[in-house]
């Protein structure tokens, strides 16, 4: 029997992998993939917790919303990365430090 705990463990593993990718990868695309992984971990949580609301299935509905929004943000993020690449000729976040004081 697959319990809620199993889902949450998978989600946590996904979150951790995503977090790791965000912090350590040298490529903006990979970071974006990491973000997607974290997002998916969250969506997985929503779906898993959706079992407690069987009437309205609000968990599933939020998950759908989140997937749609994730797709949208990914598109925006890719556009930004594209622009960044045009400007700096790189997408390595280490080299883009204009946010510094």
């Amino acid at each position, binding site marked *: 029997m697959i319990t809620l705990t199993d889902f949450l463990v998978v989600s946590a593993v996904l979150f951790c992998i995503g*977090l790791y990718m*965000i*912090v*350590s990868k040298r490529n903006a695309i990979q*970071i974006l993939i990491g973000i997607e992984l974290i997002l998916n971990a969250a969506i997985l949580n929503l779906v898993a917790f959706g079992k407690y609301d069987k009437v309205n299935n609000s968990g599933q509905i939020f998950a759908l919303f989140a997937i749609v929004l994730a797709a949208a943000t990914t598109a925006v993020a890719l556009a930004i990365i594209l622009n960044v690449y045009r400007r700096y000729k790189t997408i390595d*976040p*280490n080299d*883009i*430090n*204009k*946010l*510094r*004081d």
Partner: protein
Amino acid sequence: MEDFLHSIQILNYTVAAVALPLLAALINFCLPAKSKAAGWISTGAILLSCILSAKVFAGVWNNHEVHAQHLWFTIGKTEVFAGVLLNNLSVLMLLLVSVIALPVHIYSTAYMKNDDRYNRYFTYLSFFCFSMLALVVVDSLVLFYAFWELVGFSSYLLIGFWFTRDKAVQANKKAFIMNRVGDIGLLTAIIILFAQYHTFDIVQLFAEKGLIAQSIINNGLWVGPTGQIPALWQYVACGGIFLAVAAKSAQFPLHTWLPDAMEGPTSVSALIHAATMVAAGVFLLGRVYPMFTETELTVLAVIGCFTAFMAATIALTQNDLKRILAYSTISQLGFMILAMGVGAYASSLFHLATHAFFKCLLFLVAGIVIHQMQHIKDDNELDIDPQDISHMGGLRKKLPLTFIVAIIGALALVGLPLTSGYLSKDGILIQAFDWSENRSGWFKIIPIMALLTSWLTTFYVARLIFKVFFGEFRLLKSNPDIKLHINDGSWQYKLPLVLLAVCCLFPLFSLNPFSFEHAWLFKGLKSANFVESESIYHTFIPIVVNVLSLFVLYAVYAIYARPNSFAFPQSGFLYRLSYNQWYIDDIYKRFIVKPVLRLGSVCFWIDRRVIDGFVHLLAHVSGYIAKLSAWADQHIVDGFLHLLTRIVQRIGNFARKFQSGKVQYYLFSMLVIVLLLFVLKILI
């Protein structure tokens, strides 16, 4: 009423007699520098003074005293009066000064005629006459002091008249400073009298029943009608007056200025440093005579006697014509002081009067001789001292009139009969013996020394006369080809000489040439209780003195006037002592002048090093304290602040490192912090 009017008239005459020379001095002061009128203005003024003085003298002598005063100023509750006191003493001096000054003025018109500062000379001379005449008539001790110092001042001006000569200016400085010592004494005495009696009035103080006469010294206190102070101050006052007398009348130990004062013009020496000013000390003694107690008078006698003797021994060996006469003056003044000391008040003043005439005469003679020697020196361009008697000799043929009057003056100085000097000097000697008669043996030394001195006097006077006027002209021996055209000079030289020479003879003073007691001057001055003693001395002394004097005269003639004469050895101790004037000047230089100057330097050193040093030390110490506090400010107070800011800065820098601009880094930090929070949450 008539008496009163008479007094007023006499007072007016007196004031005019005193003021005329001052007026002359003021006029001369304003005249252009080389104006020859100056001489006649001064002479005219002194002539008028002389006539007025004679009138005053006739009115007051042996008549009633005239005393008038006017309020001068008030200080606190003390009223200081200025006034005129005419009694026998002052009118005698008034007449004497003006009579002596007149021939000297006439003489000066010729003597100074080639000088560039002719009118300045007469300005000074008139100013001196004014001060001297005023000195003898004033009635207040303050005024007396004032004119006392003014005569010293005019003497200063005249000694240094040729101020480009170094010797002259050193002499006038010396004269003024030594006189200042005396002035300080007089001032102290006046102040003591003022503190004791609250008045400066000579009449109130020294009159027959005056304040002094009513005072006694009792139990170490000097008790007067107006109060009492310790008796010590009576002695100090008398000592002060003695200092004043010693300075002005050139007594030991303050006599050394007088020989140096001979640097002034000779006419000045004749008037000031022989006849009048130097006699002021004796006059002062006469004024304050009641102050002195028996012991103090004895001290006076000892000093006078010693001075007379010492000066006579010095005069023996000097070669400077004027210096010999100067020492002779000191010696004769010593006689006067001695006379005062032995109570021969009248004789002392009598001698003052006669001495004034013959010493003035001798100086004028010296002036002529020096003047002629100067002529010879200038004409022949010789390098000699015109005052040195060893160059002179045989001048009696060249200067006949001068020679005759010089002999008269010299005889009067020696005190041979028929001269005025005989009358006054033998009077002193006789009374000195009378005085010692009542005293123990040691006091006999005083009259005996006086007797000895009078023979020494004979010796040096004779030496002077014989060396100058007898024998051959010594300068001619060493310089055979010099031209000599010298003579007695114009009437301005001759008239004063004759006038004074006449005054040196006995008839002016006494009809009896052999007894001083019959001189009118003596009678007018002697105190009421003077007893004519008939001791053996009255006949004995004159004979001894004069007979021995004659022997001395002959001896001197034999030594100096004859050719191939005997010469004294010039190496003995006594000779050197005499020639170097008893080394007194050297002693003063070494033991007084130098230490005083040294003390001055020491004071200045203290000022620079100690007092200023302390001030500088303070300045430096505060400077160091300032530096210290500046250091503390920089390193401690500021240092703490700097520490604080540095800490903040470090923290800031530390925090800054997180702001790398790398998004991943930020995220990582957030992660760490969140994890830390969790850990903390769990731990706490």
